[in-house]
């Protein structure tokens, strides 16, 4: 009976049902979402990795890349070193272009002598006023009895993702090309791609391979079949290495099939006895803290959505790719890396179908532990859901006159939500008509306004990025107050706004935010989670009532706090914390937009920023 009366009480008290309860539920959603994420590294919630595609058979073949192949490796290396040093020795006399041309010729002659089909591709990209240009050299081993229907790509960029000279990597690719040519077991063509750097080269090549390249990129004169996988080799130092660092994040947070990563780990660890690391976690002791840290690092990269290496460009074309980086000082030499790659290529060569078995959505927390999408998705979904709950509650609440007493309408607890603004059944003055025109146009207008910073930050020259950011911080302070003033007083332009419309503005804004974030969560979980957390205060921003000094003080404090989590302020804060310049980050972002097809900015400026702006306007309107 106690329960029954409690429910009846709730029915009769819309204030509790539509004002207090949603706040509580939203808050619980956020807390549970965060706690959920923190639980993931525990053994009970994460899983041991396993190879799902049986055809891969990792490490089941003997790798023969040893012995005299090392002599050839050294020979090739000396040859390339000679050309590089030649350029350095003459100092300014011989310019960069000449050295590059000589190196390209040498690569071509080596690959041609080994019996491969060689071609080159020139490209040029312009982003934020910086021109990136270069020339890709690539060569194809035709599968001995194949028909150019499928291919594997081996990439050895001249510059690694950290902009170091990858001489050993390139030499290893050349030696492997000569060695692979002798084998008759290849069922797929093998393409050796040597781009000048890790950022632009592979992107130009893979775009042209699918005929999706811009006019500034040359088409490919030589092609093979459907690409089944790609491996990037990075060995940027002279000494022997200790472990392999496997980089797997793609553009826009896309990930390669987990089977590819697992195969690399299984071959490196199981067959070759080389440890495998991920996310720059060198001393991973499999503790909760380290697992969580690994996961967060992965989520940061995924959320920011930038290319973490030469492999990232392959992901948008549904080609699974990873980078193998050598790290540390240890016993393993280039031949061990060569054997690892040989074994990986043999595994990929076994594939009958495109990698499809295992997971494409996962969070890794150790080289052999992961959580799959089914386990982690509720976390971001709960956070996105909190906005939707709040939006629906506000919508229902706007159906009532706020001043009507709860006791006056015991029977109308189920407000007909279907009845939009044009309702005709007004019963006993308890159901309000919703004035939708202003809230709708304001919310849509502010979302469209997001296109302005999106355009500005992708098209301004790189030297103006810092200034633009500071200008935007100022704009973000002034714009909400201005909008709030216009809304509250009408300024002679329109009728003054009624309180119900504030709720509707907030409702629509949160509805859009929740919708966008929950959709985004299935595509890029981490980005959705991060934006969701940063937007979490927006759910709880009320329009304050009370005495003028109280409103002024509280809303000013709230605005200051909100301004601290505005997009440009967060950018500045993170840059300051990480110790990188704003210009670098924004140049990279603009480059990502122009070259890689990165969508992070769209989410920031067209989802996060409008929602934040509307939150500020609501809070600001308390002042007036």
């Amino acid at each position, binding site marked *: 009976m106690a329960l029954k009366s409690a429910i009846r009480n709730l029915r009769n008290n819309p204030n509790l049902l539509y004002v207090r309860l949603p706040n509580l539920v939203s808050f619980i959603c956020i807390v549970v979402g965060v706690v959920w994420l923190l639980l993931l590294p525990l053994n009970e919630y994460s899983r041991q990795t396993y190879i799902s595609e049986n055809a891969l058979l990792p490490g089941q073949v003997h790798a023969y890349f040893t012995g*005299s192949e090392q002599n050839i490796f*050294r*020979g090739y290396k*000396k040859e390339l070193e000679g050309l590089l040093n030649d350029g350095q020795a003459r100092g300014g006399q011989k310019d960069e272009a000449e050295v590059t041309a000589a190196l390209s010729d040498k690569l071509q002659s080596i690959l041609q002598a080994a019996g491969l089909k060689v071609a080159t591709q020139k490209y040029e990209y312009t982003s934020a006023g910086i021109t990136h240009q270069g020339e890709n050299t690539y060569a194809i081993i035709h599968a001995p*009895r194949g028909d150019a*229907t499928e291919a594997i790509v081996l990439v050895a960029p001249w510059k690694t993702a950290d902009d170091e000279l990858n001489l050993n990597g390139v030499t290893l690719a050349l030696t492997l090309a000569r060695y692979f040519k002798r084998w*008759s077991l290849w069922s797929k063509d093998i393409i050796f791609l040597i781009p000048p750097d890790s950022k632009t080269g592979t992107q130009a090549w893979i775009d042209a391979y699918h005929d999706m390249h811009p006019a500034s990129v040359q088409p490919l004169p030589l092609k093979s079949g459907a690409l089944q996988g790609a491996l990037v080799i990075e060995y940027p130092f002279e000494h022997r290495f200790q472990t392999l660092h496997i980089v797997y994040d793609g553009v826009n947070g896309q990930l390669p099939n987990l089977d590819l990563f697992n195969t690399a780990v299984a071959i490196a660890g199981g067959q070759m006895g080389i440890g495998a690391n991920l996310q720059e976690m060198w001393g991973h002791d499999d503790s909760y803290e380290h697992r969580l840290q690994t996961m967060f690092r992965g989520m940061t990269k995924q959320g920011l959505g930038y290319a973490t290496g030469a492999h990232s460009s392959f992901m948008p074309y549904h080609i699974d790719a990873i980078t193998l980086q050598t790290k540390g000082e240890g016993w393993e030499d280039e031949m061990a890396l060569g054997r690892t790659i040989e074994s990986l290529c043999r595994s990929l060569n076994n594939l009958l179908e495109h990698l499809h078995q295992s997971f494409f959505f996962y969070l890794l927390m150790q080289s052999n532990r992961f959580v799959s999408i089914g386990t982690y998705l509720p976390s971001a979904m709960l956070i996105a859901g909190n906005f939707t709950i709040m939006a629906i509650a506000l919508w229902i609440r706007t159906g009532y006159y706020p001043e009507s007493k709860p006791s006056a309408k015991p029977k109308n607890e189920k407000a007909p939500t279907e009845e939009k603004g044009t309702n005709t059944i007004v019963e006993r003055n308890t159901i309000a008509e919703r004035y939708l025109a202003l809230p709708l146009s304001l919310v849509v207008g502010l979302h469209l306004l997001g296109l302005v910073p999106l355009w500005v930050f992708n098209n301004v020259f790189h030297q103006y990025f810092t200034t633009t950011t500071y200008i935007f911080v100022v704009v973000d302070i002034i714009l909400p107050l201005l909008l709030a003033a216009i809304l509250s007083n009408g300024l002679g332009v329109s009728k003054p706004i009624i309180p119900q419309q504030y709720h509707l503005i907030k409702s629509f804004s949160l509805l859009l935010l929740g919708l966008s974030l929950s959709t985004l969560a299935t595509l890029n979980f981490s980005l959705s989670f991060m934006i969701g957390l940063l937007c979490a205060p927006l759910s709880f921003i009320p329009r304050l009532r009370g005495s003028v000094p109280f409103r002024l003080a509280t809303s000013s404090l709230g605005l200051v706090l909100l301004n601290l989590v505005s997009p440009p302020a967060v950018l500045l804060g993170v840059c300051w914390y990480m110790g990188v310049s704003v210009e670098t980050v924004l140049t990279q972002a603009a480059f990502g937009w122009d070259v890689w097809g990165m969508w992070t900015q769209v989410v920031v400026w067209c989802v996060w920023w409008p929602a934040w702006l509307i939150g500020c306007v609501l809070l600001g309107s308390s002042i007036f």
Partner: protein
Amino acid sequence: MTVLSLFSLPFVALILSLWSSSAFASSDYHEHLLLQPLPQSSLLASFNFRSNTSQQSFDQQHFRYLPRALGQILQHAHTKELHLRFTTGRWDAESWGTRPWNGSKEGGTGVELWAWIDAPDDEEAFAKWITLTQSLSGLFCASLNFVDSTRTTRPVVSFEPAGDHSAADQLHLLHGTLPGEVVCTENLTPFLKLLPCKGKAGISSLFDGHKLFDAAWQSMSVDIQPVCSADGECVVQIEQTVDMVLDIDRSKRSRSNPIPRPVPNEQLVCDTSKPYNSDDTCYPVEKTSEKAWSLAEIFGRSLNGVCPLTDFDGSSDQSVCLRVPHERGVFISEEANEIKKDDGFTRCFKLAPSVPFDLSIPQQPANTEVPLDEPVLHAERTIVGHGQERGGMRIIFGNPSNTSAVDFIYFESLPWFLRPYIHTLHATITGHDGVLREVPASEIVKETYYRPAIDRERGTQLELALSVPAASTVTLTYDFEKAILRYTEYPPDANRGFNVAPAVIRILDTAHNVPIYIRSTSLLLQLPTPDFSMPYNVIILTSTVIALAFGTIFNILVRRVVSLDEAAALGAQTLKGRILGKLVAIRDRLRGKDTKMD
């Protein structure tokens, strides 16, 4: 082997004497092998077997060299001319030059079959075609029975009958391909059985499945056509060829140790002129001299004399020829004779019957090379774009000649689930200067024959008459849409994608009056494929949810909750209730009696 030959000789002599006295003098048999080293340590071995049977004896089912199994199939299916091809690998025109037989004896990857069938109308022709493919499927152990209406086309201008046909025949050309068919030893065995010497003697004794199917490129063909001389005497000619490009290094590896391990350090061939050259550093020199090889090393066995059924007249007794410069030393078995030809590159060998023949070439510095003809046209076809819904086809034709244009027919048969948008057919010309000119497709495409696909019934057939100007490259592109298949239409194998048959290019070379054929590589088409275990899971899950939800809701909707006395009142009013009430009353009365009796 000699024992066998000794046995067979008198037998063969007997048969020969018998047949020479008979009326069918036009029956004969020839075989020929041409060996030609190609760049990159490859060796082209081109085998040719040809025999004639007079039309008269063919009609009377008097088979001698023509295999009976094949002859009867042809007669049953009213097939007047038949061409069957088994091909794997790709011909590397860039390094190997023109194709053997100008490409007329090879097919696209997999199996290709085309035939001229005598039938009064199209339907009957197709019925006979199905009979033909079914029978050939059994004969050659190939999946030719999968050549159904969706894989059959009727090319209009791409193929011309090679034989001489009588005007009375109503011939229908049908063409079918199986691009995904893997050609292997099971196809070689029936192929060998068709030969008069069945791989026991003559050049066919070199066929070893292990070596043949290790070739980088390999093509087997069977052609049957009527050939008439000027005086009206007709013969049925069967020609079988096997062409293969072997990798000399790979073929020479022993079967017990086929792994190409790294060579010992001392066997590395290094460039000693490099300053850093030392014991542990080696810049390899790839080609210093022509490789040494011998027949026995390459083919794993030696040539077993000559096939005794071969007609020895004129030059046809020189059944093995080799194309290397005359200054190269060649060692041959003692009983054979070497005849050098005037062109400076070809030498042929006259083999002694029933004596094994071997031929070996020592390693020698390469001074002169056998000139290779430049192909008249380069063609490359690739699928562009990505995603599961749409794609595009890109075909590049390069004309290496600086003086003459190339006219050719481009023939493509596409599966029905690849739906081309012909309105997007678009051509660009690039000169050797690299300048791109965009021209309307009509300027390059002279004629078009297009037969659109019907879903699940027939594929698209596209024939274009094209012309590529001198020293330029033409790029043809068109977009296509990928159909979504019904789930039963996916093959039960691993989903690698769907093979699209290679395009056939027929070059119209009026000067030489021989057709030149080029085939593009086959393509792999990725169709939207369901994860077949997922629908299963989804069906189970939804069924459970529906059962639970529907059951409960239906229950709530239909069930009426009433008090006991209400239920009695409700029940008493209906007919059924009244009858039941009566029954209960009777039962109670009976019970009452029972209790009384107790």
